């Protein structure tokens, strides 16, 4: 494969370096070609490996150019699957994922996937066909104003008005998607642009006068942060997805170890710090560990790294971190700073760059008293569930996946109780290994995202932790996995319910289970129908053996774990409540 897109800067520099010294930069001869071919050439120049898509009338020219292009296309069974696969590919690697859909319904089917990527700041480039230029605005067959529709769920989007614009637009799309705070970018290409001729010359630079992300933090702010950390008595590092996006995991670890900081992670931040590290408090927030939430509520200096004080993390804002004296907020997006809470030390910059500078400025420290307090919380309120003698406990399945894979596998999840259990009990060791829809909470994300992740990282084991509800929202992608023999191991935690909905109804609606009990087909038969190996597990003693059998199989596997039906996910901070008030398996945690 050609150069990877994230390395574009480096690749461009290398290309320059390869030119003979002193010689004036030689101009490449532009090549005459069609728009569709130009798109292919541009994607190659960006180092694209896979295109996840589904064809249709408006993209026939594009698919024709892809046919013998050498780029690998993956035919998804639904465009939402394509968007999630591109997203999973991006989360697992940091490189942009690419998806492709036809006009109208193909394009609108991408929307949930784009919104998912947007909420979690994932670099995805979506390409859609549209009706020919002359028909735009006339309600032509399969016309949709997809740039209008996706305006609020993309970082930016483009409607290509002539083939000449294509190289510049594709270059800009990849640049915008992958730099600053990453995010999805959509490029809409009217059908006739695909057969319009142009002189292709791929630009090395972009001309975006209004776009200049800040990477380096302000030194005065960094000094202020160092001082606050040096003076802290009860510091806490609060790490979000931005730390993973910027590749700051080593710096997070270095500063945590140097300053003896406890580390709590958001759902999106899991893996930015090793879950098995003695300083890890695991996840914080609504379903976070009690000790992480107590640490938040009692810290005096809170260091937020690439996190955005989401309501699922803070609970009621006026009760959040009541003892805090200094909030240090590091984020590449200036608009995140001061959006939900006011930081005392705001630092706009790339998490990794800022942390590397900060590490130099902070003294080594120990916090024995603070740790004694935290360890007491850990002893008193551990993450726990009652093991089942006869029933398979969903938590036990997540724990077993952790044990058999040693925390080294990529785990992609769906949304619901199983997602929270996976976050709690799969103590992911490294970055880009926990693939989950955090911001949008999109059921149906897990399977396609897992497929994208596995294609991106064939060297890694990939588990999908799904629920009986979520699995059925993109179950058609089993065909995609089967066709390409993508070895994802799908663990369906089948509780016969939309479990998270049922849990809320149990607590807040007097157990009136309105449409949360759910009939499902036989997932083993379904998987086998797709030609996929499948197992059913009903006994707690069979969990590990099934996981091992799945791991040993060279290809996709579906395991239908028939788990305890009315298990609840604890701890739980009721929505809008305070992080100090958590429900546990035995009622309110005192």
């Amino acid at each position, binding site marked *: 494969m050609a150069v990877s897109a994230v390395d574009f800067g480096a690749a461009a520099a290398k290309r320059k370096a390869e030119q003979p010294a002193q010689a004036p930069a030689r101009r490449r001869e532009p090549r005459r070609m069609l728009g569709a071919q130009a798109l292919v050439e541009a994607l190659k120049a960006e180092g694209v490996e896979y295109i996840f898509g589904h064809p249709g009338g408006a993209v026939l020219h594009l698919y024709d150019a892809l046919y013998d292009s050498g780029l690998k296309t993956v035919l998804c069974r639904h465009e939402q699957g394509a968007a999630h696969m591109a997203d999973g590919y991006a989360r697992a690697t940091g490189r942009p994922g690419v998806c492709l859909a036809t006009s109208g319904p193909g394009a609108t089917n991408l929307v949930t996937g784009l919104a998912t990527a947007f909420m979690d700041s994932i670099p995805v480039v979506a390409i859609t066909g549209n009706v020919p230029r002359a028909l735009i605005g006339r309600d032509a067959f399969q016309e949709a104003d997809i740039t209008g529709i996706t305006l609020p769920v993309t970082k930016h989007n483009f409607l290509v008005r002539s083939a000449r614009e294509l190289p510049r637009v594709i270059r800009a799309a990849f640049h915008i998607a992958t730099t600053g705070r990453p995010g999805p970018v959509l490029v809409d290409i009217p059908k006739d642009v695909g057969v319009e001729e142009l002189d292709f010359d791929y630009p090395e630079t972009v001309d*975006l*006068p209004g776009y200049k992300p*800040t990477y380096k933090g302000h030194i005065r702010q960094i000094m202020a942060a160092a001082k606050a950390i040096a003076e802290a008595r009860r510091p806490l590092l609060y790490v979000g997805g931005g730390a993973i996006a910027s590749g700051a995991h080593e710096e997070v670890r270095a500063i945590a170890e140097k300053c003896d900081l406890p580390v709590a992670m958001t759902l999106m931040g899991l893996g930015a710090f090793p879950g098995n590290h003695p300083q890890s408090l695991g996840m914080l927030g609504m379903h976070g560990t009690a000790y992480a939430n107590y640490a938040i509520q009692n810290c005096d200096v809170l260091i937020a790294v690439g996190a955005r004080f989401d309501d699922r993390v803070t609970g009621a804002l006026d009760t959040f971190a009541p003892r805090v004296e200094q909030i240090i907020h590091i984020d590449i997006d*200036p608009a995140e700073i001061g*959006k939900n809470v*006011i930081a005392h030390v705001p630092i706009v910059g790339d998490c990794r760059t800022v942390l590397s500078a900060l590490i130099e400025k902070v003294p080594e420290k120990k916090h024995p008293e603070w740790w004694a307090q935290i360890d007491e919380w850990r002893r008193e309120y551990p993450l726990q569930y009652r093991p089942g003698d006869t029933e398979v406990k969903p938590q036990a399945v997540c724990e077993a996946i952790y044990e058999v894979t040693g925390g080294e596998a990529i785990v992609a999840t769906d949304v619901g109780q199983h997602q929270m259990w996976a976050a709690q009990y799969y103590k992911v060791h490294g970055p880009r290994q926990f693939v989950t829809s955090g911001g949008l909470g999109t059921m149906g994300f897990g399977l396609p995202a897992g497929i994208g992740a596995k294609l991106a990282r064939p060297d890694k084991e990939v588990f999908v932790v799904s629920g009986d509800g979520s699995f059925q929202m993109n179950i058609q992608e089993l065909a995609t996995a089967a066709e390409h023999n993508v070895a994802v191991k799908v663990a369906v935690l089948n509780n016969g319910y939309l479990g998270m909905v049922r849990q809320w109804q149990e607590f807040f609606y007097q157990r009136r289970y309105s449409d949360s009990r759910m009939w499902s087909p036989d997932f083993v038969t379904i998987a086998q129908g797709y030609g996929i190996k499948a197992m059913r597990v009903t006994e707690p003693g069979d969990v590990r053996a099934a996981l091992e059998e799945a791991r040993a199989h060279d290809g996709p596997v579906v395991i239908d774990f028939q788990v305890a039906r009315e298990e609840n996910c604890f701890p739980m901070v009721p929505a809008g409540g305070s992080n100090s008030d958590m429900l546990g398996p035995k009622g309110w945690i005192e």
Partner: protein
Amino acid sequence: MFGGAFGATDGKAREHTISVLVENRPGVLSRVAGMFSRRGFNIDSIVVGAAEEPGFSRMTIVLVGDERELEQVQKQLHKLIEVIKVSELDPAEMVERELALIKVAADRTNRAEIVQIVDIFRASIVDVSPHTVIVEVTGDVKKVEAMVDLLRPFGIKEIVRTGRVGVLRGPKSSGVHGDRRRGLQAVGG
């Protein structure tokens, strides 16, 4: 101390005028307007026109909010790729103007009286018909409103207002060039 969730005002909401320099591309107005509606900010007035250099437009946006809201608006505007520069125009340091065309019922009996009012305001009459006159008035909002109030008794048939545009007094500028030298580097993302 945190001031609660964003959107809660600190009680000091006032009117702000911001000047936004943008690349003149299709859709840029809907991006700006869409950002306001999506995030629940209200626009009192928005005016778009060509800027001093080809390829760029300037928007003058008037909104009501507290300092924190204003800061979020500015930051969110900056995130739009086609936005080059956002600056708040300090009311004490800016010249602000609006133009209004007011169609007033008028006949021989009262036309002279209308002309008198128009003269006092240094406004002008740009069209006369047997039963109407059209008054053109330019000035700050107060002046335009005072004019409207005085004409109301005659019977106003139609009012068209441009919305407000503003620019800083003196040599300071939020121009296309000013901005490449400074400011820009500190924002974005």
